[in-house]
């Protein structure tokens, strides 16, 4: 089991390109024309989005047990 994470965006780095949303296997990310959004309940902590971002705008914060 991967460590449970919350994916966070650095808005100053993000270009809203939608790439992370495209590679996410569970639709846990939505990228609109003006906003990056994350849905914790859908995330399976696979980190695919984090390595795919071309500029390193995403990171994973460890989630405590029960969070």
């Amino acid at each position, binding site marked *: 089991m991967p460590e449970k994470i919350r994916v966070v965006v650095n808005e100053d780095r993000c270009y809203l*390109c939608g*790439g*992370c*949303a495209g590679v996410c296997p569970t639709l846990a990310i939505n990228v609109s024309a003006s906003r990056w959004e994350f849905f914790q309940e859908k995330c399976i902590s696979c980190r695919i989005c984090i390595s*795919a971002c071309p500029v390193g705008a995403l990171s994973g914060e460890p989630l405590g047990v029960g969070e």
Partner: protein
Amino acid sequence: MKYDVVVVGAGIAGPIVARNVAKAGFSVLLIDKKPAIGTPKQCAEGISMTVFKKYDIPYDRRYINREIYGAKLYSPSGYELELRYKEASGVILERKVFDKMLAYYAAKAGADVLARTEAVDVIKKGGRVAGIKAKHEDEPVEIYADVIVAADGVESKIARKAGINTYAPPHEFDSSYEYEMLIEGFDPDLIHLWFGNEVAPRGYVWVFPKDEDRANVGIGINSDNPQTAKYYLDKWLKENNIPAKKLLEINVGVVPVGGFVKELAKDNVVVVGDAARQVNPMHGGGMAEAMEAGTIASKWIVKALEEENISLLQNYTKEWWETDGKRLEKVLKVRKVTEKLTDEDLDLFIQVLGSADAEKIASGNYGGVIKALLKHPKVILSPRRIKLLRELL
């Protein structure tokens, strides 16, 4: 709102479908989440000359930056392979204008077009997708349609919400990063491509000239790489003493380079372009592929509507897989083998191939190139290289 067809996404694939279906007399709505269709661009803007005639797109100077006469390939140790035609073989577009004009052609053909309209979900009725929920300038809108087209690019949210499986593993995507910048010292009549495992793992660095001294300078690498695309491009610029001080734009994107979607139509929903992962896995170009898929899809949408038989949409899946799908599967096989090449292999191959072979690469005749390589003494002496190349035949 009710239309015969709603198309989500006004990149390349969407407007082609919207235009063709509207031309046949059906009511079409084309929506895009961007406030200005085409902006920001996520593209190096290179496309072959053949597409204008083939897909009935005017050769309009408003979206053509520059005509291109060939390509130059650079190996990790600096060997070069040049291919130059007498006539222009491709162009560097201005996609901000191009995408918008494609949407304009769709509108002229009769389609309605709404920018700043984001599809947020599908509407399901009786187990079937009856339309989409969207947001236009923060106002919710419901759009009902007989056929729903997901042309929503790499995100493919609407295709997935409609139940089409567009999943591809992370290795089947490239991460891309690009500067539109002032750059000198490269022949502006050619596109330039640099290969090497340290330069651009799995991919390449490109310079696509838009002017004598202005170009899209970018990179694509495997998206499951521990480093970012930006890291590799900045490193390449530094190592080549190219100052990154005159940056006009920064463009970012993820490109599907494999994992073509098996089921392109499900009931009354069809998926086209990047959303269907219809991109050339070798070079990551997807505009021509999006136009081709859009053309096939629109043909079957029109037939399905004319004959009031939605099951005819399945013929889009069938036709695409028998034609472009078959071709791209072969290209994917080549990509998988080229991933195993070392820098020495790349040096050798670029060293021994001549312009006749480059011509074959450009036309997608990889078989001919492999046969030429297999004849070379340095290749014959290496059982590993022979094995790799044989995998491709």
